[in-house]
């Protein structure tokens, strides 16, 4: 290093801010103020984490970059600012990206992306495996590869066709397949076991409307009258389909009804939470209108300022009405 070069570096070094953390390590801010370089000053030799040092120290073991020089300049002038550094946080999936439907938890695509960036995504690449055409039943397949900053790669595929998408996205099958592929690759990378909402065919799948009768839940309430296993005779007394049907249960007003499990049976406590039946009604209405779960969440947040799960019974009632009148 020539004297001229040292002088030039010293001039640059004078402009740099030097910090010292609690444990005595020096950090020098880059001239743009965006990066901190860790400078080690020791009897065994000085070093810096900058590129200039890494390049030149190979040629000249005594090389001193502007950051090292900045530390040398700052110490005698007592221009070292005290710096404390926050503990590095472990990547965490924020709860707002998790939605619970019928007791099952689903992660949203933005949550997976957020977690991926926290861990350090280097790149995401998507390859089209199959274009949706009439010949293949409009079946789109994509493969996504997520590369971490450490160079690890995680790959998975996603598919979309008119039968496994809601009507809202059925015109965007390739994009849907791409989103699903990325979601699956991100789940592998971020070690998230929850299914992504975007992977579901529709809301029905989320709320298990497909019918699961493997574990039927028996009703504990005793019946007033056993069901007749023998069919009733057809009667022609009326033209209504149910004309001759015998009522099985007693009249509503005389019934010894089981008490609701909470004190929310009355409409008056407006703060009571949304009931299971209301939830089902909301999902049923939204499905019939081609509104996705995400759109429903947005609509609820816009209208009531809370998440769907936190809707009150009265707000849920109003929202059902809103959905009903939606085109």
């Amino acid at each position, binding site marked *: 290093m020539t004297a001229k070069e040292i002088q030039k570096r010293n001039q640059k070094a004078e402009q740099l801010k030097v910090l010292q953390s609690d444990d005595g390590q020096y950090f020098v801010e880059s001239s743009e103020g965006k990066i901190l370089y860790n400078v080690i000053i020791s009897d065994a030799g000085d070093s810096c984490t900058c590129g200039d040092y890494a390049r030149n120290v190979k040629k000249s073991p005594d090389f001193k970059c502007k950051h090292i020089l900045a530390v040398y300049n700052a110490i005698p002038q007592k221009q070292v600012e005290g710096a404390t550094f926050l503990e590095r946080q472990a990547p965490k999936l924020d709860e707002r990206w998790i939605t619970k439907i019928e007791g099952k938890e689903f992660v949203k695509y933005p949550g997976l992306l957020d977690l991926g960036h926290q861990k350090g995504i280097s790149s995401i690449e998507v390859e089209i495996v199959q274009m949706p055409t009439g010949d293949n039943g409009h079946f789109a397949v994509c493969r996504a590869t997520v590369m971490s900053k450490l160079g690890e790669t995680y790959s998975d595929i996603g598919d979309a066709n008119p039968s496994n998408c809601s009507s809202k996205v059925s015109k965007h099958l390739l994009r849907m397949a791409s989103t699903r592929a990325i979601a699956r690759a991100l789940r592998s990378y971020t070690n998230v076991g929850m299914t992504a909402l975007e992977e579901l065919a529709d809301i029905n799948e989320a709320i*298990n*409307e497909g*019918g*699961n*009768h493997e*574990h039927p*839940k*028996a*009703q*504990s*309430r*005793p*019946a007033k009258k*056993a*069901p*007749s296993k023998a*069919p*009733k*005779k*057809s009667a*022609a*007394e009326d*033209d209504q*389909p*149910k*004309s*001759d*049907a015998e*009522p*099985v*249960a*007693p*009249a*509503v*007003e005389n*019934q010894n*009804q*089981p008490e*609701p*499990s*909470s004190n*929310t*049976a*009355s*409409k*008056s406590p407006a703060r009571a*939470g949304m*009931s*299971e*039946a*209301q939830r*089902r*009604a909301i999902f*049923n*209405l939204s499905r*019939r209108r081609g509104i996705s779960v995400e759109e429903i969440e947005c609509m609820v947040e816009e209208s009531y300022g809370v998440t769907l799960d936190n809707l009150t*019974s009265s707000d849920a*009632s109003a929202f*059902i009405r809103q959905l*009903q009148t939606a085109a």
Partner: protein
Amino acid sequence: MVLSELRQTPHLSASSINEYVECSLLYKCGRIDKLPMEFKSDALEFGTCIHRVLEAYYSAKMMGDRMLLKEVHEFFVFTWLDMARGRDDIRYADGNDYNSLLMFGRDLLTAWYTKLPDDDFTILAIEEAFSFNLPGIDIPIIGAMDLVEQDSCGTIIITDFKTSGRAYSKDEVDQNQQLTMYQIAAKQNGYGNREILLRFDTLIKTKVPRFEQYWTTRTELDERRLIKKARQVWDGISKGVFVANDTSWKCKGCAYKKACDAYLEGEEYDQASNQ
């Protein structure tokens, strides 16, 4: 309260109000003159049969029992056999007969059974008959709710079972008078302070059978509109106003076609027109 007993006395119902509005002569033939129907449509008989199967299923569920699909099929076959075999007054639509509907019914019930959501709702009543009076109407409004349930928060769910040749449109569900009447009845009969949701459980008779649930609600405005209409219908009935809607698409399949033609073309008509 038994619906068949309630029907013995003069009454109005959601279906009779609808019938009067669509063709008041049809109302007169069937409900006032009580003329025998010229035939029974296969859709009506088949629907009644399916309805009984669903009723049996929920009755068993109410007792903590559960009918297997095999038992559902057996019950249907037995019911259809009892209801339809050997009857010559059932008019089958093109392509239908006793056997084809026997086969189709099983497929339809399979679609219903496998798609029916597994819920924790408590069954309060099955075939719940009701009767109530409205100001301005001298006879009671009667009917029966197919299924009344409540969820853990106390929300009441009133379900009507339907068989239909096609899926329902939004308006058909949201404007259906029968469901509105059920809500009025539920409020009149002790559920006035509850959140009430309404539902159609519809077994759709498409080539590939389907099952759809349609959830809906009604506002007080919906109730007021139906009550007003019911009063107008009662006004017409009590004044003897019965007008044949003989240009309806339904005339072709009407079970009172001959009686209607006789009424419009017969002596009663001539005397009236010569006055």
